[in-house]
């Protein structure tokens, strides 16, 4: 951060403290709403959903053989394999948003080409595993699954469409070097890793079930014991450390922003008039979905913060269709990411991609609102 920016931020903070009507009821109500939503998240979602989700994401980062997945996105891969792999690999390869861009550029310029690259670019942030798990925990699993499926379908359709629009792009991809990784260093059996992954997922699912609390506690403790057994007797120390490191890294990157996002979401409930929300996006009309899609495309949501914000907008009367639309464009697009896209893809492809995603999201959200 530049020095003058620090100064500007401090000056703005000072001006706010100096002039803000701190005693006004709306200010007090906003702060209290923000805090009470934070309280709700701390009580209901942090330990039972987010912590297991971070560990699961850490497991994916350390133990999934990424080279094998990437190999399937190379220049010579058959398209009917590359597209589906690209549409799910976002959740596997890109646990952190900073890894998405190099992967995208690699697939785009040297690998399977523009179509699969676009599919990957869209699902990377959209089907992030922690985001899906938190969505399920907060808004219900029908919502989370719809979000997942809609993102995967849109990514493939958008990819195919882009490949059709820019046929000439992939010509010179076939001869570039496509190094994916030199030797995988994970030497455990796939079954063991899968078991390790599923047991952690089981903890998260168990927390969500409404069964006898004692029985639930016994089951969870038993699973944790098995997990610890795997950690101590099967896995090597360096991999365990890497696992903890990745988990901690994600926590550091996501949790502070999420807390801020939750607080802001609480304020939204007080500050934004209900009539505005219901009149703009209350119905599942095409227009409401277009509004949601456009808002999501420009607005920047830090990872996971879309969940509390959409939760509160729905509380104010936002329809389920526009809510799903907002989920789809909210993570995939933002003003900063658009600027980067223009740089990487150029003046023709970037707007085509952005428009395709916005239109497809409108359609998916509208369909969801009508059917489910």
């Amino acid at each position, binding site marked *: 951060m530049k020095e003058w920016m620090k100064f500007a931020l401090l000056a703005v903070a000072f001006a706010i403290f100096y002039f803000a009507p701190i005693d006004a009821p709306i200010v007090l109500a906003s702060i209290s709403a923000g805090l009470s939503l934070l309280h709700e998240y701390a009580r209901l979602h942090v330990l039972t959903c987010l912590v297991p989700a971070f560990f699961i994401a850490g497991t994916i980062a350390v133990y999934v053989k*990424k*080279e094998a997945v*990437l190999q399937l996105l190379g220049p010579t891969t058959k398209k009917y394999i590359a597209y589906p792999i690209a549409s799910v690999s976002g959740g596997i*390869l890109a646990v*952190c948003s*900073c*890894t998405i*861009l*190099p*992967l995208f*550029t*690699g*697939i785009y*310029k*040297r690998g399977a080409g523009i179509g699969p690259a676009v599919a990957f670019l869209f699902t990377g942030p959209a089907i992030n595993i922690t985001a899906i798990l938190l969505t399920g925990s907060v808004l219900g699993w029908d919502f989370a699954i719809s979000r997942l499926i809609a993102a995967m379908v849109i990514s493939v359709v958008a990819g195919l469409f882009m490949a059709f629009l820019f046929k000439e792009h992939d010509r010179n991809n076939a001869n*570039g*070097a*496509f*190094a*994916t*990784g*030199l030797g995988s*260093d994970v030497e455990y059996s796939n079954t063991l890793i899968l078991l390790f992954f599923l047991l952690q997922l089981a903890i998260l699912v168990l927390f969500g079930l409404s069964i006898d609390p004692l029985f639930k506690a016994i089951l969870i403790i038993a699973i944790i014991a098995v997990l610890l057994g795997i950690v101590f007797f099967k896995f090597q120390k*360096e991999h365990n450390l890497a696992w903890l490191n990745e988990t901690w*890294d994600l926590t550091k990157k996501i949790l502070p922003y999420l807390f801020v996002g939750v607080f802001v979401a609480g304020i939204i409930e007080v500050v934004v008039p209900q009539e505005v929300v219901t009149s703009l996006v209350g119905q599942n009309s095409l227009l409401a979905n277009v509004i949601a899609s456009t808002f999501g495309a420009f607005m920047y949501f830090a990872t996971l913060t879309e969940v509390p914000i959409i939760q509160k907008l729905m509380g104010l009367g936002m329809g389920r269709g526009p809510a799903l639309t907002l989920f789809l464009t909210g993570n995939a697009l933002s003003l900063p990411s658009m600027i980067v896209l223009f740089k*990487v893809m150029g003046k023709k492809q970037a707007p085509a991609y952005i428009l395709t995603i916005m239109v497809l999201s409108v359609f998916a959200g509208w369909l969801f609102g009508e059917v489910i």
Partner: protein
Amino acid sequence: MKNVAILGSGCSKCKVLEQRLQDLKAAHALDISVVKVTDLEQIISHGVMMTPGLVIDGQLKSVGTVPKDSQLLEWLKE
């Protein structure tokens, strides 16, 4: 004198790798120069998509991981 390049756009593992290399350099008085490559085009031109990539004297040594210290030392002393 070995030229070591770390390819990475600023992910946490890239920073760890850079720190490790600097530590090793200091601890073993290695004759190396460590540079960081953050430009995406240049990173991709090595065929690297999983950061950090480690290039020693123009040769790609590792991708997407922070190698063990012993392994790093071996490469640096070759």
